[in-house]
């Protein structure tokens, strides 16, 4: 008797699940490969938070075309091998329509052959120029190219009539890519690099490099790295009484840098996405609205303002949302609609994708900021 009841209950349950599956439309599935833990967690953590926040927000507003959005997030820990395994899982087991991430250039390069073979659109949140150059059929990205940041700095140096510079770059992927671009673009701006120094990501004292730079004929120093190295460099430069102007990369455009470098951060100039100076932008700025909405929304959910890095995930999710709204969630349709995206006002800049350009940004994506009284100020 009991056996019969259980069997019939089970049958009912199965019938019910099948029926409800048919009634409600299938959710739209997007995969995310983010370095939530591990060394690049300063990228992956805000990216994950942003993706989760947007998922709830979009579903509360009725989903995409009446269907709910489901973001499946795997933590890659910044490890290319894990990123590749997770990408395979997303494509083969989870059947996602598109993927956002990975967070770093190294992981993205490892995942590219997989998405290219499977024909699934990927919007990377990493900055490396080789991700979209040469253009790959299925690969897009939202983080600004290093070369755009370099151009911004060189523009400013030219305005100040500086043509001899020193560079101090970190010996990891971010630093070597920046170093490459700094050297590549220097000539076309009439700039000579008179001193080319390197430091390790875990180094605790950079006075030796700065003394060497101080003794060179450089008129300005450009440092390329992510926290905490550049903060140590700023402190060492102050200790040694370095008088030349100090420029940094967009890798330190977060409040954490000011906190770490303290007084030594005063007067440092760096290119940054608009997000950290959102409230200072003139009303005419086309991105201002999206930026303020993102920063405030993030603050409401996580008690800190949204940053540059989470912005890459915001752009990726919202670009996908737009593409799916216009053309449905078939991978090929998403890819086509992404290529047709024009004037998308995102966090990282105003995106204009095309079949030839899968990065979509110009150097206007960056503004120059400086640090005054422990806060960001726009450089006019």
């Amino acid at each position, binding site marked *: 008797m009991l056996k019969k009841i259980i069997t019939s209950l089970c049958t009912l349950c199965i019938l019910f699940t099948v029926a409800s599956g048919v009634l409600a439309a299938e959710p739209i599935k997007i995969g995310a490969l983010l370095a939530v*833990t591990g060394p690049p967690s*300063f990228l992956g953590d805000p990216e994950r938070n942003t993706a989760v926040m947007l998922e709830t927000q979009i579903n509360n507003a009725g989903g995409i075309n009446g269907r709910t959005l489901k973001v499946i997030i795997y933590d890659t820990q910044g490890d290319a091998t894990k990123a590749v395994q997770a990408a395979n899982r997303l494509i083969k087991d989870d059947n996602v329509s598109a993927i956002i991430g990975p967070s770093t250039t190294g992981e993205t390069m490892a995942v590219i052959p997989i998405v290219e073979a499977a024909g699934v659109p990927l919007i990377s949140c990493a900055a490396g120029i080789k991700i979209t150059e040469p253009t790959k059929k299925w690969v897009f990205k939202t983080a600004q190219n290093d070369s755009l940041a370099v151009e911004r700095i060189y523009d400013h140096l030219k305005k100040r009539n500086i043509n001899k510079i020193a560079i101090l770059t970190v010996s990891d992927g971010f630093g070597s890519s920046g170093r490459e671009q700094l050297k590549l673009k220097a000539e076309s701006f009439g700039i000579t690099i008179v001193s080319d*120094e390197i430091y390790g990501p*875990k180094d*605790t004292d950079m006075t*030796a490099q700065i003394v060497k730079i101080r003794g060179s004929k450089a008129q300005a120093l450009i440092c390329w790295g992510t926290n905490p190295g550049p903060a140590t460099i700023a402190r060492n430069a102050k200790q*040694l009484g370095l008088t030349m102007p100090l420029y940094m990369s967009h890798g330190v455009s977060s409040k954490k840098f000011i906190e770490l470098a303290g007084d030594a951060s005063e007067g440092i100039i760096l290119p940054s996405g608009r997000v950290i100076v959102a409230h200072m932008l003139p009303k005419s700025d086309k991105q201002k609205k999206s930026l303020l909405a993102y920063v405030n929304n993030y603050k409401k959910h996580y008690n800190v303002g949204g940053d540059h890095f989470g912005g890459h995930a915001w752009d990726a999710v919202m670009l996908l949302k737009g593409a799916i709204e216009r053309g449905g969630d078939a991978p090929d349709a998403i890819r086509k609609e992404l290529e047709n995206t024009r004037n998308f006002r995102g966090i990282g800049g105003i995106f204009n994708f095309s079949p030839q350009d899968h990065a979509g940004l110009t150097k206007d994506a960056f503004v120059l900021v400086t640090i005054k009284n422990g806060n960001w100020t726009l450089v006019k």
Partner: protein
Amino acid sequence: MDLSEDILQYILSGLSTGAIYAVIGLGFAIIYNSTSIINFAQGEFVMLGGMLTLFFHVTLFLSLPFSIFLAVLVATAVGALFERLAISPLKNADPLILVIITIGGSILIRGIAMLLWGKDTYVLPMFSGDEPIVLWGATLMPQNFWIFGITLIIIVANRLFFHHSIIGKAMRACSFNRVASSLVGINVKHTVLFSFAISSALGAAAGIIIAPLTMTSYDVGIMLGLKGFCAAIIGGMSGGIGTVAGGLIVGVLESLGAGLISSGYKDAIAFIILLLILFLRPQGLFVKGDTERV
């Protein structure tokens, strides 16, 4: 800015980092001498020193001197606990197994620190301001003088403890011959516990005095630990002046190498020295080769 001033700056910066390597190296040597294992968790106590001070000072609003005192105390307790839970239960285990256990311990401590404090980098306030001090054309921070001063005190105290106190002498006796020591009534198990406690305290002290200059995060221990290991190897794992000299040599050569040769090779320099010493003089630079008595 002439070259001699630059070189002075390299040497002073190098001495300051070298002093830290020396204190960490002493920690390695003390444990090696009483247990003949290399405690690869040593770097994690450096991290604990900095992070615990930060926790007591910034999160619990205690005064800096008191926070430092508590941090050393807690780190010492963690070191002693580590010995009780992981090293002491394995009686007569092969040193290699114990070394691997210390590596496991270091990963565990680092992981717990990551869960407790997150992955961010934090900064500890300088002990006495951040106005640079000019010294014959080179500039140093007041914190550098704290590093020199405290390192000197640690070295002297270390010497006094091991040569003039009964516990210290007992510990040295154990390092020469464990069986004979236990025969004359020395409690060998206690000396092992002591050596772990002392070297954790040393590591924590190093971590605290360097944190205002270099900042601290859950993973600073790895690199500093390895550099301290280099110092101890150069000093032939001696608990005294050899290891101190080893640390200073590594620090100064790194700094000179980065300044005069190429900054890209800074870390390579320390490890090239390490390999050369291991190949050519495995007994250390300052130790006359001794014969193993059977």
